[in-house]
């Protein structure tokens, strides 16, 4: 059996935890993070990989037959980005198929770039998505158009705020405020017969559905602290959005959401 030197094992541990932190930050579920790290560890030649996951950090240990290396990394949550999760997972599968040395793995991880869509395309698509939700709830065409305007305007504001690195709670509250203000156009001189649908559908771009689903999935699979953490995060985002809606409604003096 060929032994791994301490230095080499440190490099391996660093590469694995870098991959794990990227997956945690960009919104992968805990089971996927654990599995990917363990498979990368096996492919890079350590005996086992043990990890402790909490919402804001990862502690990870690699074991070989006579030594262990442990390291910790903080994780700062970023907007969900599935293309990065996909790239890390693809790297892991490639590692299993052919032997790649640690330096190359580290290089590959550093070079992973998010695949951003054109921002105006995203603005348009999110607008039309929320308008579709309004249609599915039975809105008339005036409410459909107003929902489209409100949520694409809100998405534009959200992108601008995210660009200037505001914290996500503030971004959600302000975006909900803007969406509700624009959507309240449907109340003006009764142009729409379903104004409340426009109001409620235009803020659907802010539903933190993915953190909620992830929190349930984590809890079901036995990662209870991660489940609670994500649950709290999602609840806070929902609360922030509601505050934005309520503030806008009290300014415009609209009753009954």
């Amino acid at each position, binding site marked *: 059996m060929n032994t791994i030197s301490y230095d080499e094992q440190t490099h391996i541990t660093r590469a694995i935890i870098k991959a794990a932190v990227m997956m945690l930050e960009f919104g992968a579920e805990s089971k996927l993070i654990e599995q990917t790290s363990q498979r990368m560890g096996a492919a890079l030649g350590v005996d086992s990989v043990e990890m402790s996951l909490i919402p804001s950090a990862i502690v990870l240990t690699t074991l070989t037959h006579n030594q262990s290396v442990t390291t910790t990394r903080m994780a700062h949550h970023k907007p969900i980005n599935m293309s990065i999760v996909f790239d890390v997972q693809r790297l892991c599968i490639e590692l299993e198929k052919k032997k790649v040395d640690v330096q190359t793995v580290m290089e590959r991880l550093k070079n992973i770039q998010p695949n951003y869509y054109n921002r105006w395309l995203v603005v348009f698509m999110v607008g039309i998505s929320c308008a*579709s939700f309004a249609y599915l709830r039975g809105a008339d065409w005036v409410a459909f158009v107003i929902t489209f305007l409100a949520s694409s305007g809100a998405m534009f504001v959200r992108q601008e705020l995210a660009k200037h690195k505001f914290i996500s709670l503030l971004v959600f509250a302000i975006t909900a405020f803007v969406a509700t203000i624009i959507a309240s156009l449907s109340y003006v001189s009764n142009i729409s017969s379903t104004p409340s649908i426009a109001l409620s559908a235009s803020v659907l771009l802010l539903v933190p559905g993915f953190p*909620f689903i992830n929190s*349930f999935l984590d809890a079901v699979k036995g990662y209870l602290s991660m489940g609670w953490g994500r649950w709290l995060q999602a609840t806070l985002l929902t609360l922030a959005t509601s*505050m934005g809606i309520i503030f806008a409604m009290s300014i415009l003096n609209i009753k009954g959401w």
Partner: protein
Amino acid sequence: MNEIILHYVLSALFSAIPAVGFGMVFNVPKHALKFCALGGAIAYTSRLALLDLHMPIELATFLASLLIGTIAVYWSRKYIVPRPIYTVASIIPLIPGTFAFTAMISLVDMNSHGVTPELIASFIENGLKSISILGAISFGLAVPSLYFIRYNRPII
């Protein structure tokens, strides 16, 4: 009869659009977007069909997300792509966003305008609805992967 078919086709179309739109917000890779559209349409239309059979919404949501979770396992093994990439956008049309916001808004209303039985009822009804639908979605998604977890085997 034709009207019913048209209704289903339109629902499928208008639920595929949000799946793609939110897939873009979550930066799903380009080649997976068409599967997201298909998944969103399947999820929403199957739930609609089950609701038309007078099934309660929680059970209908559970079965719809079980269906999409199973299909996503098949896709993910076929194209070697992690399963969340498909499921994350496909379940978007099922998420009970309005219920969750209504619950939170009635909670804040209770604080600012005083507690009334209507507000308490609205908070509890909408909160329970949103939690049970969310639970149904995630349990439906989790069941296919729990099948693979038994021997700690990864899906792909």
